């Protein structure tokens, strides 16, 4: 149900995020609520906007209280005056921050970058979980009591305990006799997505380049997970050869040696063929490299692979070229020449960390 307040609430959220009414920004303060989760104290961020008014300055003003204690009894800390707090003698309460959920994060990302919502392809887009009554359980709400089964159980128990008199067949169900209908949520086909990350780990990809890939892929994950119920992610690293690895290895391996990109594309194509038939999956390919391929011949091979095998099966294939001091960056130029007009391919050049922002927009800005 949509409440009237939702409109006001949205507006408030937008102001806090700085999307509208920039002039209110200077009145925003970051408040918090202190809550408790299990043993931990948690801090729940609560941004507030204070409209300025003529009010009394607090200036550590006192007040009237009620309770025990002699003059001098300490009640609690004053508001922070900022700056010279001096060293305290008490251990700080350890607060865990309740972060925004990933979903909220994805929404913010979407708003910030003005990303269109993804429209999953065609008939794979059936997301409906239907509850069906399929079983019987011993617990449940009275509304779902299964009369026949309960009756049977009562009858069985009464006979077993020898209290059953055929001439006066009174049955009294007790708690243990009761049976309830129970349900299962039927899993109907739903929009699934598979993400294949490919990364060049040849000697020219340094720590900084990988950092960029890590950050960018985190945001891509967040965004795609926001749109699909089930997301599977596979990682491929390649130098002169390609192999599938787990997430940890993907981000932390540093190999050396040459770069043969077609190896990775070939492996990706095989994976898609085996595991992600395009009738059932929304497949996304992301490839990051510094753009230095082994030979022009291999680049042609890549283009052929993309054209014939990868592009027809994916929603979008994205290539991000991370600037590195060693790479020539030729690969991007070649791809653009060969496939630049194909809307299934997104190309982006990431010069440094600040470039990530723009690059995400290029990758995800098409709503595919």
């Amino acid at each position, binding site marked *: *149900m949509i*409440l*009237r*307040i939702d*409109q*006001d*609430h*949205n*507006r*408030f*959220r937008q*102001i806090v995020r700085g999307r*509208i*009414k920039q*002039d*209110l920004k200077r*009145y925003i303060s970051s408040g918090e*609520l202190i*809550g408790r989760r299990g043993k931990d104290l*948690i801090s*729940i961020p*609560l941004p*507030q*906007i*204070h*409209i*300025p*008014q*003529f*009010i*009394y*300055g*607090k*200036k*550590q*003003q*006192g*007040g*009237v*209280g*009620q*309770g*025990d*204690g*002699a*003059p*001098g*009894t*300490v*009640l*609690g*800390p*004053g508001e922070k*005056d900022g700056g010279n*707090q*001096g060293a305290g003698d008490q251990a700080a309460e350890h607060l865990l921050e309740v972060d925004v959920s990933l979903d909220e994060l994805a929404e913010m990302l979407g708003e910030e970058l003005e990303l269109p919502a993804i429209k999953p392809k065609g008939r794979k887009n059936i997301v409906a979980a239907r509850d069906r009554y399929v079983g019987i359980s011993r617990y449940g709400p009275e509304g779902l009591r299964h009369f026949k089964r309960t009756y049977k159980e009562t009858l069985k128990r009464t006979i077993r305990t020898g209290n059953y008199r055929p001439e006066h067949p009174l049955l009294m169900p007790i708690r243990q006799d009761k049976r309830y209908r129970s349900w299962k949520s039927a899993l109907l086909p739903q929009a699934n997505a598979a993400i294949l990350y490919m990364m060049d780990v040849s000697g020219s990809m340094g720590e900084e380049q990988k950092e960029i890939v890590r950050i960018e892929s985190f945001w891509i994950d967040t965004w795609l997970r926001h749109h699909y119920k089930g997301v599977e992610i596979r990682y491929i690293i390649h130098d002169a050869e390609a192999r599938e690895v787990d997430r940890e290895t993907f981000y932390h391996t540093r190999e050396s040696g040459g770069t043969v990109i077609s190896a990775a594309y070939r492996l990706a194509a095989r994976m898609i063929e085996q595991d992600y038939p395009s009738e059932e999956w929304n497949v996304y390919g992301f490839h990051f490299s510094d753009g230095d391929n082994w030979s022009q011949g291999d680049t042609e091979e890549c283009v052929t692979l993309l054209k014939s095998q990868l592009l027809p099966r994916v929603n979008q294939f994205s290539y991000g070229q991370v600037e590195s001091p060693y790479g020539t960056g030729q690969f991007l130029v070649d791809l653009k020449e060969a496939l630049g007009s194909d809307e299934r391919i997104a190309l982006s050049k990431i010069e440094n960390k600040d470039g990530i922002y723009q690059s995400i927009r290029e990758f995800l800005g098409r709503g595919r």
Partner: protein
Amino acid sequence: MSRLPADLAKLQEIIEGHARAYGLDFFPVVFEILDYRMLNQVASYGGFPTRYPHWRFGMEYEHLSKSYSYGLSKIYEMVINNDPCYAYLLECNATVDQKLVMGHVYAHCDFFKNNLAFSRTNRKMMDDMANHATRIRRAMDRHGVETVESFVDLALSLDNLIDPHAPFIVRDRPDAGEEPSRPVAQRMKSKSYMSDFINPPHLIAAEQKRLEAEAAARRRKFPAQEVRDILRFLIEHAPLENWQRDVLAIVRDEAYYFAPQAQTKIMNEGWATYWHSKMMTEKMLTDSELIDYADHHSGTLGGRGRLNPYKLGVELYRDIEDRWNRGRFGKDYDECDDLRERARWDRKLGLGRDKIFEVRRVCTDVTFIDDYLTEEFCREQKLFNFDHNPKTGMYQISDREFRKVKQRLLMQLTNQGQPIIQVADANHRNRGELLLRHVYDGVELKHDYARETLRNLHRIWGRPVALLTVVDEKSRIVSFDGEDFEEKDSADKVA
């Protein structure tokens, strides 16, 4: 919104009967039962189902929703001052809570109806709030959401600048109509032949001139007397467009509607608590509900160290009732300095119940505390003053001295804890600038807020604005001309 289920409707009937039997006198009460989201919405709107669109309601909603979903606080009930009185119950409350809440609501409603501070409030505010919403929406359609909302922000920045007593008194009576007669220099009585000696003509002429100049200056002075209802002053005199005037009028109306609730927080909550506890313990509690009731009731009255209006209010009513039952008031009692006799004092007057009904009729929080908070009460309730110790950075108890505690309490309640600001001169420096005066009472304004508020005021007044106040214990004039702030010492005394 759903109708009350049968069991609660039955309960309402019973509780209404009890309330009437105790002598409570209320508007008809309409209960609505809401789920927590709806209740949070209504609470964010200050108890009303419809308000004009504004982000601050959304902010309030976020606060309430977060506190609720993390289990920090929950609203049991909302009740609004209206005829009929609307009250909202939280759907998932247990029956014992609903009972308590209903009793509480009837007492609030009695208070709204009978307390004199509320006597001039609009009892059809529910409808008016909806009208306000329509008017503001219409303005938004015509002038754009952003434009109108920003102006509402400005208006809200000034919405504490009203005169809460204005509904009850006429501040400036219009002049009798005719121009005040020309001032005439006074002459000493004399025989006619001595006249020129006793009243030398050149002196008389000079005096005459001076008086006329003074009168002219007085006529030029505008407003003639300082004005506390600044919002009204702006509506009447600021160069605004009609829709802007309308927005200011709406914000002002609502500020006046809510003002008595701020003036009687302690009394109102105390009264409601007094009666729900009376009804529950004397009439309605079943054995199985006792523990839950005690738990929730003490939750309402709890709070470590802080002053809780529910607690202070209910204890003070009980104290008054007890004192008037036993005749512990008046000259004889006050002058009795035999402590043993004072402790035993009981004239068996039985005037308590009548007295608290009288108090709930005529008092606001300020007079409630001023007239009835006694030294004994202060001691029994363990009231204390606390202050900030700059050395440790902590708040600590400073004293338990009755006079000081009471004085501080009254200070905090005066003008609902808001500074008093008045329009001193709308033609400041003879340039149509607006000069406000902060009536200084020992506490300075929050300086950065004051500046920002001046900036907002400037956007309404359209000409430079200035505020005469005290900064760091010195009389200062802070002014804003649309671009820069200026601050300088002032020769005028503020207080």
